[in-house]
């Protein structure tokens, strides 16, 4: 169980500091795949950095704490202060599939052993990796190749191999398949799901594609303007979203075979620089009332294992498909 | 003789001209404030002192400092001669002021010449491409590889024989445009692929419009920096030739002053100032030019959200 308690991440800039993650409290059960969704700038990547412990100026963990639920070698519980030593031993990271997360001038194999978490006996580790990557659909010669000789899909498989071969308790994947073609993306996502099932560990997956979330995740967290607005089982979040933003996010995506009219969400998220009172989605929300603009809704459990931060959680928008406000 | 080169990375920044979409909140183009960072201001102050000093003061000088034996030799600093006199009976300070003026004049002359040629060649080679570009780049790479000093030594006779001081400037321009042309060409190559060039073309703009309204603003940032580097390069080249006596050494320049100081062994006659003054002046002038060059560079880079 990973527990986030009122976590706040702030960025110090020339014009003062803003909270990119503004008070998020969550309990993430072990063995699940948690999807983190939201528009760009909603704080999902910052939250990932916080959980991974990649905190360096100008970003700082301004308040709150994170407990990881798994202990280190000596039985001490790991917290956000000590997680750094466990990078790529108990916790690992799959970067955005930008084309060059691998050192272009060094063979792929040597990048499996150049980090402290790896077992000092490099030769033995490479033997294990050589056997392991076969299962991930990578030819054995991959380890002796240079990154520019691999295709985008193969490079992403190498990243997944690197992040999983030492069986971490928690894997954070930040938009792992964004730059890949849709066919290769499916293989990579299926691979991730299989690995998670075998290892039984927890994966945090950030993606802007709700379709990817539906296919892969077992739990969903929706972020909006640095706040968590909905959190619950994927099935119930997708089938019966509580928060209007989640519903509009899902409704805005065209689906093949479904001819209902779709509309983008008008307007834009509020700038985090200005003084924000009440629900941050109020300006764009069709159900917004005076209460929404004055009193900020808390993340409350409206259904078993299904939380939402909205005073009108669950109320239906106008008949789906034909948004009343157009 | 150092051809002061654009630091590879800063030209790479400019070459790439990576205009990553700037992060919001939106920044309006805040007038000229973005231009001034400490480096640039410091550099401009130094340059102002040198330029104003060397172009204004000569009007107050009664005696032509190049004339030898107008005063007693090797006098120490005194109210009449603030830096004493040289081993040839000239006032050291006035000689230095004239030297700075002549060097700067040469530098600016060559700067304009090289900037014009290198921009024309760099822009056309980068934009037109094909065989023309390959041919031009072959010549450019050869000119960069061939050391310039020996060629200047060959032409030494022409330099010394000719009465006009700027002949060496013409020679430096003829052989010195390659570096800038190469940088401008690589910048234009990367700009040519940028989408807004196609946008302009589909807005009805012709090749000339595109060169001037689309490409030139991006290249202009480098032109300012390139010009200053060329001034630095030109002064340096002439001075190097003068120091070894193969330039018109009777004309006071930052190089010829040191040539006379060495040849009339300022060291042994204890006349340190005669050698020290030009060293300090040259270092300060070059430092000023360099600070302005990198200051401009940083300012332009930050304006385009690249820094």
């Amino acid at each position, binding site marked *: 169980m990973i527990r986030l308690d009122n976590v706040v991440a702030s960025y110090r800039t020339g014009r003062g500091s803003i909270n990119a993650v503004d008070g998020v409290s969550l309990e993430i059960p072990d063995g699940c795949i948690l999807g983190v969704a939201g528009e760009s700038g909603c704080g999902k990547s910052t939250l990932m950095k916080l959980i*991974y412990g*990649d905190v360096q100026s100008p970003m700082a963990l301004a308040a709150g704490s994170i407990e990881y639920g798994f202990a280190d070698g000596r039985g001490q519980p790991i917290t956000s202060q000590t997680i*750094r*030593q466990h*990078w*790529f031993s108990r916790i690992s*990271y799959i*970067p955005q599939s930008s084309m*060059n*997360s*691998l*050192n*272009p*001038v060094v063979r792929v194999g040597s990048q499996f052993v*150049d*980090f*402290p978490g790896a077992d000092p006996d490099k030769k033995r580790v490479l033997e294990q990796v050589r056997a392991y990557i076969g299962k991930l659909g990578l030819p054995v010669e991959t380890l002796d*190749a*240079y990154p*520019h*000789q691999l295709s985008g899909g193969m490079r992403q498989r190498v990243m997944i191999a*690197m992040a999983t071969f030492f069986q971490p308790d928690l894997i954070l994947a930040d938009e792992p398949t964004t730059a890949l073609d849709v066919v290769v993306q499916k293989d990579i996502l299926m691979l991730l799901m299989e690995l998670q099932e075998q290892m039984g560990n927890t994966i945090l997956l950030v993606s802007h594609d709700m379709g990817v979330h539906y296919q892969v995740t077992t739990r969903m967290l929706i972020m909006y303007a640095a706040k968590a607005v909905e959190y619950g089982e994927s099935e119930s979040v997708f089938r019966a979203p509580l928060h209007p933003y989640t519903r509009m996010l899902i409704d805005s995506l065209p689906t093949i075979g479904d001819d209902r009219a779709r509309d983008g969400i008008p307007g834009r998220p509020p700038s985090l620089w200005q003084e924000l009172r009440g629900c941050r989605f109020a300006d764009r929300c069709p159900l917004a009332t005076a209460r929404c603009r004055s009193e900020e809704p808390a993340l409350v459990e409206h259904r078993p294992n299904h939380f939402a931060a909205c005073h009108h959680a669950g109320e239906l928008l106008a008949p789906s498909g034909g948004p009343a406000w157009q | *003789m*150092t*051809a002061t*080169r654009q*630091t*590879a*990375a800063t030209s*790479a920044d400019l070459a790439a001209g990576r205009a990553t979409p700037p992060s919001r909140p939106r920044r309006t183009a805040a007038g000229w404030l973005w231009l001034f960072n400490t480096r640039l201001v410091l550099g401009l102050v130094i340059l102002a002192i040198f330029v104003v000093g060397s172009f204004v003061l000569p009007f107050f000088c009664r005696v032509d400092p190049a004339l030898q034996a107008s005063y007693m030799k090797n006098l120490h600093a005194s109210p009449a001669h603030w830096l004493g006199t040289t081993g040839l009976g000239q006032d050291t300070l006035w000689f230095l002021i004239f030297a700075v003026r002549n060097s700067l004049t040469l530098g600016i002359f060559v700067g304009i010449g090289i900037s014009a040629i290198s921009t024309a060649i760099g822009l056309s080679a980068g934009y037109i491409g094909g065989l023309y570009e390959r041919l031009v780049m*072959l010549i450019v*790479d*050869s000119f960069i*590889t*061939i*050391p*310039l*000093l*020996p*060629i200047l*030594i*060959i*032409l030494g*006779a*022409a330099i010394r*024989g000719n009465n006009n001081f700027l002949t060496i400037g013409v020679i430096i321009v003829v052989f010195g445009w390659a570096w800038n042309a190469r940088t401008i060409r690589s910048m234009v190559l990367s700009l040519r692929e940028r989408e807004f060039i196609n946008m302009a073309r589909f807005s009805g703009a012709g090749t000339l419009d595109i060169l001037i309204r689309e490409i030139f603003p991006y290249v202009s940032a480098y032109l300012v920096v390139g010009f200053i580097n060329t001034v*630095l390069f030109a002064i*340096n080249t002439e*001075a190097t030739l003068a*120091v*070894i*006596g*193969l330039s018109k050494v009777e004309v006071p320049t930052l190089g010829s002053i*040191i040539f006379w100081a060495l040849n009339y062994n300022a060291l042994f006659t204890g006349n340190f100032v005669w*050698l*020290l003054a030009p*060293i300090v002046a040259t270092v300060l002038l*070059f*430092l000023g030019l360099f*600070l302005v060059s990198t200051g401009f560079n940083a300012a332009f880079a930050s304006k385009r959200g690249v820094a």
Partner: protein
Amino acid sequence: MGVIQYVAKRVGLYLAVLFIGVTITFFLPRLLPTNPIDAYIGQIQSRANGVLSADAIAQLRQNLEELYGLKGNLFSQYVGYLNRVIFHLDFGPSFTYYPTPVSGMILNALPWTLGLLLVSTVIAWVLGNLVGVVAGYFHTRRAATVLEVVGILLYPIPYYILAVSVILLLAYVIPIFPLSPTFPVGDLSLQMVGSIIYNSTLPALTLVLAGFGWNILSMKALAVATTEEPYVTFARLKGTSNWTRMVRYVFRNAMLPQVTALALSLGTVFNGALLTEILFSYPGVGLIMRTAASSGDYNVLYGAITLSILAVATAGLVIDLIYPLLDPRIRHR
């Protein structure tokens, strides 16, 4: 294969550079208003205070034209010149040290120049880039800016100022090194090597200082850019140490453009070496060029220039051929 294309292209450029270099040294003097032969005859006449008869002068002019290869029209002279220079490295005899062949003189001066040039350039490159990568990698920390300031102060100072300041400081004010170096002749004994090193420290120091600043600044800028690359960020997220990331990730990648920059800057560095030799009267090609220029010994002058272009172009080629060994992306297509 990537490497063959790379090498073929680079050798092609090398030959073109040589050809253009030789052509320049052929045509330039002929464009000059002063004709070397008149200058030489003038010298002879002044020495013989005008006693030479007219036909003796005509005969002398005839031989000189022969010696200078000024026979026939421009094109046949050019072909003759190319043949002599490229195939036989023959630049004719020197006048002041008649009849010693020019090529002999220069070829035993060239190792001195190349020795000084290559040793100091390598030192300047290695030191400068190491300091530069540290300054670049830790650019957010205050200490790194100190290293950059060193680069900023050194970089703009031209060779001749460095040379004169080094003489002033280390040979005059604190006389640890000789004012003008003297090089023993004869076969290489240990003691002789010691004195060669001792005597050439000042010119070498000048060249190192001149190259040092440039390398710091360019490597720092490259290192700052490379540190932002995704593979360095990912290395950090793997928990790699600062040292591993700085050396195996940032330096290994940022040094590649620095190798190309080194090859490109050889022409300029060579100028600096010539100048330093002349100022320190170091027995290299520079000194020969300087004396030949002032004494009007044109054969030696053109020979020295052509050979120095050859040396610089060859050194550039060698460095560019090392590049594929460092960059696997070219080695393995």
